[in-house]
C-alpha cells in the first residue's frame, strides 16, 4: 500500500492526498488499477491531470504543498519519507493558523472564522479594518474568509448535483448557523441547503446510501470479484436515473479493465 494512503488514513480530513497518474493511463484505467490494488476507501483523490510542475519526470515523485498552496518539498518520496512525515505533521498543526502575513491584531478574528463563526468573524474583520494601519490586511483576510466559505458552498452544490445528498445536507447545515448575519452568504447557503433537502431528491439519497455501503464492502473484499460486480449492476438497475446508479454502472465497467 502506498505510504500516501496510510498518511491519508492517519490524518483524515486534515490532509489531502492527490494521486496523479503520469504514465498516460486515462482516469478510468487509473481508477480501475487503484481499486484492484485495494487503494480506494480513503479521502484520497485520483486524477491524471498535473496541477503542478515539479523538477524532473522520474517516478515515483511527490510534491507537498503547505496550507496556503505553496510548494514546500518535492522529490523522490523514497528518499525523503521522514522529512515528508515531519513536514505534514507540522502543516497539520497549522491548519487553524491565520494565513501568513496576518497581523496579530487579526489573529483572533481568524480563530473565530475557523471555529465556524463566519459572519461574526467577517464583521469583526471589517470593523478592525477601519483602522488605517490594518485596512490592507483586513481586506485580505476578509476576502480569504469569503473565498473559503464560497468554496464550501460550491462543494455543497456539487455534492447535491452529483447525488451525494446526505453529505451536502451535512456540510451546508454545518455552515448555516455560522453565516447568519452575513446576508449574501446566508442566502447562498440557504438556497443550496433547501435544494439538498428537497423531497424530490429522496431517490438520490437512497441510491447514494446504497452505493456507499457497497463501496465500503468492496474496499474490504476483492473489489471486483463477481459478487461485487453483480451487486453494482443490480444497484445500477434498481436506482436507474440517479447519479449513484450511474456511478455504480461506471464502477462495474471498471471491473472489466484488466492489466498485464
Amino acid at each position: 500500500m502506498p505510504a500516501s494512503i496510510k498518511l491519508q488514513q492517519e490524518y483524515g480530513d486534515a490532509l489531502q492526498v492527490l494521486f496523479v497518474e503520469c504514465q498516460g493511463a486515462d482516469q478510468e484505467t487509473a481508477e480501475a488499477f487503484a481499486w484492484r490494488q485495494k487503494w480506494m476507501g480513503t479521502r484520497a483523490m485520483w486524477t491524471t491531470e498535473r496541477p503542478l510542475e515539479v523538477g524532473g519526470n522520474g517516478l515515483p515523485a511527490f510534491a507537498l504543498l503547505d496550507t496556503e498552496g505553496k510548494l514546500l518539498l518535492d522529490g523522490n518520496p523514497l528518499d525523503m519519507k521522514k522529512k515528508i512525515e515531519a513536514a505534514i505533521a507540522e502543516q497539520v498543526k497549522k491548519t487553524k493558523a491565520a494565513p501568513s502575513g496576518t497581523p496579530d491584531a487579526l489573529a483572533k478574528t481568524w480563530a473565530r472564522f475557523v471555529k465556524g463563526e463566519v459572519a461574526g468573524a467577517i464583521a469583526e474583520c471589517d470593523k478592525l479594518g477601519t483602522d488605517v494601519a490594518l485596512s490592507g490586511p483586513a481586506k485580505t483576510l476578509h476576502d480569504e474568509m469569503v473565498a473559503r466559505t464560497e468554496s464550501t458552498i460550491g462543494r455543497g452544490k456539487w455534492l447535491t448535483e452529483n447525488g451525494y445528498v446526505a453529505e451536502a445536507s451535512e456540510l451546508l447545515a454545518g455552515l448555516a448557523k455560522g453565516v447568519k448575519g452575513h446576508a449574501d452568504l446566508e442566502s447562498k447557503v440557504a438556497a443550496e441547503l433547501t435544494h439538498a433537502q428537497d423531497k424530490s431528491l429522496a431517490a438520490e439519497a437512497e441510491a447514494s446510501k446504497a452505493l456507499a455501503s457497497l463501496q465500503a464492502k468492496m474496499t474490504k473484499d476483492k473489489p471486483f470479484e463477481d459478487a461485487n460486480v453483480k451487486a453494482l449492476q443490480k444497484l445500477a438497475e434498481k436506482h436507474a436515473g440517479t447519479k449513484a446508479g450511474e456511478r455504480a454502472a461506471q464502477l462495474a465497467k471498471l471491473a472489466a479493465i484488466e492489466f498485464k
Partner: protein
Amino acid sequence: MKHSMRKHGGLAVALLGAVALTTAARGGDEGTRYTFSKAPANSMGVKGMADLRGKPVLIDFWGTH
C-alpha cells in the same frame, strides 16, 4: 477488455512534461492555481487546488506500469 500497458518511451514522457509546463503554474502560490478539467475520482466537490487551501496537500505522482 485488456489494455496493453506498454512502457512509455522518452518522447511520451517529454510530451507529457511539455503539456504539464503549459498547464501547471509555478510561482509563490503555484499550488492554488490549477482547476481540474475533469473532476478527480473521489473529489467530493473539489474543483481546483484553491478549494484545498487550509490544509496541506500531498501530491503523489505515480504510474500504472
